[in-house]
């Protein structure tokens, strides 16, 4: 059979194949390129998994150290102390809001007078400095120079008083007096004008006057604050001892790792002398097991004291709650006090639960791997590079990414879908020729450029709008941070509009024109045809467009890194929708920001890889779903 074949190959016939042809070469080139992309994708996934999956055992060991060294024990008390500090701060803010709110008129008057005076000094300041700091001018030695400077000073003063700023809370007489005192003010005067000084005193007096009836409240706050001192100091003492233990444990871990590396190298070494040397090194690197038991015993002895202090704080807090005034007059103060009252029961409950927690805590409890995984997926803290303990909880990042995506999509979906419907179904050919390229052009803007437009223009405008009286009904206004979730969401909306628009427009274009024709021949209007025929027929495609837009928004890095504010904290939802005006960090942003700075192979480094894996999985999922819808649309 084989010989027959070969003999066949030798004798050529008229359909003879001519060896390795040019065509085959091209074909092979194309095939290798297609194959290469698949190979690269596989390598990327393998690399991500290799670097990322080492994270969980490493993090587990971190958490174990956290427990064995007793840091976890200290944190039980510390969490309660932190809540206590937050409550104290809320009460203090409420107190000052109340006092300043009642002295609002005086505050405004002193502010306005000072503002007018400051504007004046800003204008004349440089000339004035020349006069009083110039020895020649002062000693009358150079009379001509002095006269010239004084003349200049007069001019600046005229200019400063030409258009003094408005002072609605000062009487006409007071204002005139102030202006007069500035007009006649000698350059060497250093004291404030009489009215400015008087108003400052008036304000202090008003503060004191209004503070007097609140004396009781002040005492309650002070008492409450000092009730936490004892707990604070015991935590401080414990902190010192556990930190030492933790450092010892970490050093031992590093030595142990070195030893293992050396042993591995020794077993692979063929030269007996060299092997012996490596083994000796490894023996030398054998760490003394650090003594964790002695400091732990000392720590555990404090259990009763800790519990007692918690009891005491609980009693003091319950008392304080009864004594804080039921009603304040200033709306800001009321809001702050309300927030404190709302947080109070949880605080008391935590204090009550603390002694039980303290007595139940054991440093010998094992830390299973599932704890590390759970702590990563549901952890509310992403703390890195701290002296105390690093936590890698993905929740603040995921929430930030999701909230930004929500803002972005809630803007870009309506805009881009209706633009797509308009362009596809209503626009004249000339409009189509204009609108389509313009929308698609947005994609050409580099995201870094869009980022600084966001910071410099959009963020600033947003903040200015947020302080306008007409917009105070918007939750979260006035905003505190110029860079926040909303700003980032708006910019990402702009970035996702071209994606969603193009794909939705394609989907609408793919609807057979016969459908629209049939609908219109049946006497349906353009709008009816759009809503009843075009959109239902292209629904899968539009949904896919939205999903791909979502994938783009979630995966975008540069804009969020520049504009989202980068605060790693779950936004405070107690303000409702105002939470969208708080800064936040994102899954993508954290990788871009931290990956360059972490030591290679550290737990932190691996944590970033796991974040990358999560991101990859989410975007893959979104794209797969979109793909599914596109396929369904094709059928």
């Amino acid at each position, binding site marked *: 059979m084989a010989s027959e074949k070969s003999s066949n190959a030798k004798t050529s016939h008229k359909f003879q194949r001519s060896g390795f042809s040019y065509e085959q070469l091209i074909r092979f080139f194309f095939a290798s390129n297609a194959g290469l992309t698949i190979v690269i994708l596989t390598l990327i996934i393998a690399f991500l998994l290799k670097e990322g999956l080492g994270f969980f055992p490493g993090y587990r060991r971190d958490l174990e150290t956290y427990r064995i060294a007793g840091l976890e024990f200290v944190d039980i008390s510390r969490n309660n102390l932190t809540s206590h500090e937050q409550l104290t701060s809320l009460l203090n803010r409420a107190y000052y809001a109340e006092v300043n709110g009642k002295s609002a008129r005086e505050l405004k008057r002193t502010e306005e007078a000072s503002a007018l005076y400051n504007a004046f000094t800003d204008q004349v300041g440089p000339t004035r400095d020349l006069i009083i700091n110039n020895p020649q001018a002062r000693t009358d030695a150079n009379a001509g120079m002095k006269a010239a400077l004084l003349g200049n000073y007069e001019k600046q003063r005229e200019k400063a008083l030409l258009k003094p700023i408005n002072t609605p809370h000062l009487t006409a007489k007071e204002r005139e007096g102030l202006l007069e005192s500035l007009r006649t003010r000698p350059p060497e005067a250093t004291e404030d004008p009489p009215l400015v000084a008087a108003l400052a005193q008036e304000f202090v007096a008003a503060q004191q006057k209004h503070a007097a009836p609140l004396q009781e409240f002040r005492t309650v706050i002070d008492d409450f604050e000092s009730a936490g001192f004892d707990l604070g100091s015991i935590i401080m003492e414990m902190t010192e001892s556990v930190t030492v233990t933790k450092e010892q444990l970490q050093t031992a871990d590093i030595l142990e790792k070195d030893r293992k590396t050396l042993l591995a190298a020794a077993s692979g070494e063929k030269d007996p002398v060299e092997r012996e040397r490596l083994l000796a090194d490894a023996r030398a690197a054998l760490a003394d097991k650090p003594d964790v038991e002695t400091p732990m015993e000392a720590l555990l002895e404090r259990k009763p004291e800790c519990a007692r202090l918690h009891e005491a704080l609980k009693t003091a807090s319950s008392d304080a709650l009864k004594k804080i005034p039921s009603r304040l007059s200033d709306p800001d103060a009321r809001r702050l006090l309300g927030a404190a009252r709302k947080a109070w029961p949880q605080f008391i409950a935590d204090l009550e639960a603390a002694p039980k927690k303290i007595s139940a805590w054991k440093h010998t409890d094992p830390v299973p791997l599932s704890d590390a995984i759970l702590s990563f997926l549901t952890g509310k803290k992403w703390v890195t590079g701290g002296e105390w303990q690093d936590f890698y909880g993905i929740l603040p990042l995921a929430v930030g990414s999701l909230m930004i995506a929500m803002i972005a999509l809630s803007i870009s979906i309506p805009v881009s879908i209706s633009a797509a419907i308009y362009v596809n179904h209503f626009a*004249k*050919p000339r409009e189509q020729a204009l609108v389509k390229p313009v929308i698609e052009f947005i994609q050409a803007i580099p995201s870094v450029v869009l980022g600084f437009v966001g910071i410099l223009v959009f963020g600033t405008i947003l903040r200015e709008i947020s302080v306008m009286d007409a917009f105070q009904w918007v939750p979260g206004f006035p905003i505190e941070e110029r860079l926040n979730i909303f700003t980032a969401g708006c910019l990402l909306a702009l970035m996702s509009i071209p994606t969603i628009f193009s794909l939705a427009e394609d989907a609408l274009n793919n609807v*057979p024109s*016969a*459908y629209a*024709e*049939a*609908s*219109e*021949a*049946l*006497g*349906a*209007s353009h709008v*009816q045809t759009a809503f*009843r*025929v075009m959109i*239902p*027929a292209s629904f899968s495609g539009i949904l896919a467009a939205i999903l791909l837009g979502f994938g783009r928004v979630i995966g975008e890095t540069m804009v969020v890194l520049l504009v989202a504010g980068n605060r790693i904290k779950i936004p405070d939802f107690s303000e409702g929708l105002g939470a969208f005006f708080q800064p936040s960090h994102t899954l993508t942003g954290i990788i871009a920001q931290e990956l360059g700075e972490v030591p290679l192979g550290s737990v932190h480094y691996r944590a970033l890889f796991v974040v990358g894996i999560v991101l990859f999985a989410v975007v893959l999922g979104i794209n797969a779903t979109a793909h599914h819808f596109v396929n369904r649309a094709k059928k």
Partner: protein
Amino acid sequence: MNDHQEKPMESRTSATAVDIRNLSFNYGSTQALKNIGLNLKRNEVTAFIGPSGCGKSTLLRCINRMNDEIAGTRITQGEILIDDINIYDRSVDVVKLRRQVGMVFQKSNPFPSSIYDNVAYGLRMRGERDSAVLDQSVQESLESAALWDEVKDRLQESALGLSGGQQQRLCIARTIAVKPTIVLMDEPCSALDPIATAKVEDLIWKLKHDYTFIIVTHNMHQAARVSDKTAFFYMGELVEFSDTSRMFSNPSVKKTEEYITGRFG
């Protein structure tokens, strides 16, 4: 060649369904219709015949202004009157016009929804919400289109599951459900097999007492079978317009005879 359109029309205006006067029509710079004059009577079936590109479909689409949707098209001269109203007047609402002048297309194009929804579409677009009225209309229309018995048990199934012939009859049912007075048909049977074609033709014959049909066809036999009057177009001009029986037995123009005997086209 144009002597027929100069002939005074025998019918009185009240019997006229569509009156096309001196109509010229352009696709961009190409003149697709040249000075067409036609008077179509109520409750008659008129067939437009002629070789491809002769302008018969264009004229058909002018009657309910479907050409409006195509960029670069315009009427350069003349007018079309329906019930004595010039339908190209500025004051005409195209939506209302199309409710009176329905259209069935060459390729059956049911919406990708249920049979019921397809038939009820036109009425719903008109704001009809009463399900009893819709039910009745759907049944009547499907009965008129001789489709009711075949689909009455699966009204909620997708219309795309029907056979080609059924789909085309569904499109006819959908068109007559909105009760137009004139039904335009653009080669309605070109994609159908002979049996389905026969069913559609029967349908036209049966319905002609209630509607005025204008049908574009490439099939001479079909024109001969279903129509009362036939108009023959060639190169954008109306060559001959007369009773179908006369045209097929004794055409007055040589060109017509050549075409219907199959010597060109």
